């Protein structure tokens, strides 16, 4: 029982790391990045390629994943999302184009990774870090689980505090409420958007590397599955709310674990979809969402 709770918390933390950046970008600068899953996978994949050449310790691998993720995210923002937002006639058109553009871009890293790995899962056996498990009597916890839990909850707290208390955070929230008025108040929308996308990409890269350590190996296709889980977590908690994403990710992981433990697991993928659908019907703003952040 305690073991299941710990596993659910670890899974929830991974969902959280992944969904945090997406929720941040969606709730503030209005970009729902469908290529987030590809960034996540490709950052982990690049770290894998490097670890094949040089045996790196875990912090270096994480740093590498974070850098690659941030760089990819910023690149996509500059090359795709900025031109779309500049050209689109209205907000709704831009939203649709950003989704489709994201779906198209997501294919590119996936195609490269699939081509190189031939769709075989990859891991970090070349690195120096080894997963060790500590037996605490009532529960077994591994060192990587501790890293994941601390990283996810710490970063969520940090970002939540930064949005609430720091001046750039205030500016970013202002963009989320009304980007035109925020620009008139002297907010540099472009720079903040780049910063947000960099943070989102870095979180995706971090989640990718940690997931690979946790599972031992991941397949190039695992980005898509995570993307849908992240939607569920975000919709459940409410777009743009950091507390909402934390609760959404944990609830999703909890329900999934309960179903996985008590059934043969074939219904597990449906939980995320059912949660999205029911939540949108009952409370479209999510558990913690506010009306003004809703973008329709």
């Amino acid at each position, binding site marked *: 029982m305690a073991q299941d709770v710990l596993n659910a918390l670890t899974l929830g933390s991974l969902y959280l790391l992944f969904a945090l950046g997406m929720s941040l970008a969606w709730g503030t600068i209005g970009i729902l990045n469908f290529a987030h899953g590809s960034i996540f996978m490709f950052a982990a994949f690049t770290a894998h390629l490097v670890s094949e050449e040089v045996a790196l310790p875990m912090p270096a691998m994480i740093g590498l994943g974070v850098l690659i993720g941030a760089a990819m995210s910023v690149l996509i923002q500059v090359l795709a999302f900025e031109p779309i937002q500049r050209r689109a006639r209205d907000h709704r058109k831009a939203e649709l184009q950003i989704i489709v553009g994201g779906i198209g*871009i997501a294919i590119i890293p996936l195609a490269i990774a699939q081509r190189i790995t031939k769709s075989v899962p990859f891991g970090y056996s070349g690195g120096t870090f080894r997963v060790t498990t500590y037996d605490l009597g009532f529960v077994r916890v591994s060192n990587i689980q501790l890293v994941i839990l601390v990283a996810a909850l710490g970063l969520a707290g940090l970002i939540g505090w930064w949005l609430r208390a720091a001046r750039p955070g205030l500016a970013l929230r202002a963009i989320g409420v009304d980007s035109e008025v925020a620009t008139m108040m002297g907010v540099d929308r472009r720079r903040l958007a780049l910063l947000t996308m960099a943070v989102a990409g870095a979180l995706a890269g971090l989640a990718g590397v940690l997931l690979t350590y946790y599972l031992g190996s991941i397949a190039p296709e695992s980005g898509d599955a995570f993307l849908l889980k992240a939607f*569920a977590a975000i919709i459940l908690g409410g777009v743009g709310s950091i507390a909402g994403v934390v609760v959404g990710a944990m609830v999703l992981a909890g329900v999934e674990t309960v179903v996985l433990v008590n059934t043969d697991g074939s219904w597990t993928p449906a939980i995320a979809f059912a949660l999205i659908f029911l939540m949108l019907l009952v409370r479209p703003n999510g558990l913690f969402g506010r009306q003004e952040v809703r973008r329709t």
Partner: protein
Amino acid sequence: MNTWWLSNQILIQSTFISLLLALSIQVPLRAGVFSFAGIGSYAIGAYTAAILTIRAQVAPVVAIGAGVLLAAVVGYLLALLVARLSGLYLGMATISFTLFLGVLATNGGDLTGGATGLFGALSTLTTEHVIAITVVVLVLLAASERGSFGRRVDAVREDPQLAVSLGVDVVRVRRRVFVVSGALGACAGGMNTLLRTTVSPETVGFHLVVTALTIIIVGGAMSWAGAAIGAVIFTWLPSILQFVGEWQLLVYGIVVAIAAVYVPGGLLGLLQEGWRRMRRRGRRLPAEGAVAQTQAAAAVDPEKELAALAAPTTEVRP
């Protein structure tokens, strides 16, 4: 022609089926409804046709028709459920509806054949039937894009509030769009199952969403013709791209990304733009020598020039 027809039968069939599938997304999009329910209807149509054909050996018309009816009813009920949602939220709700159906098919036991799916749905459906059905659908859709109904749909897309104030029943248009989208998707799914004789959960997954979206984005989202262009390109592109071998998927991704970012109107938009420019050039030439005065006057008045372009039949040229 005949050997070409026989050797490319599969590609010809899938061109028309992916066209119908793309239209099931394009029709809602034209009314400003961002719904992926058409892909879910594809699954409904595919499984209904397979189950009816395997268990009851009914004629293909009945098998596909039953799927179309069922999907239209489901589409109507879904429209009632998600009436409050719009934009991205509607997209998310309908995408989860679609993917949920995939999991449902996996867990359907004997009825849906579980993860392996259903086999042996043999029928008398031929390529000619598929083409005939598609042509009928295209004629109906082309008619719906014209006249007062077409304008009403345009109004619902561009400005729902304005449309309501002009007496357009926006809610009804939206519900109809869901029903039509469901019927189109189910028709595509049913025909595909009967032609391939099998259906499995993998064939009705997320990749269909990507396929349908890319077809209408690259082709052009605002008309059936755009979807037709996109369907032809994306069905035949893989066989043309054979020379890039394993990098095919990469080229595909780059094409989609560039089209989505830099060519928002799609290829159809580009063609229309080019056509308009050509016509404008053609019209200016005869006016040049004879009546330079009027031409100059028309040129400084862009409003008048626009009006002249928009209504060529009523325009009086000296």
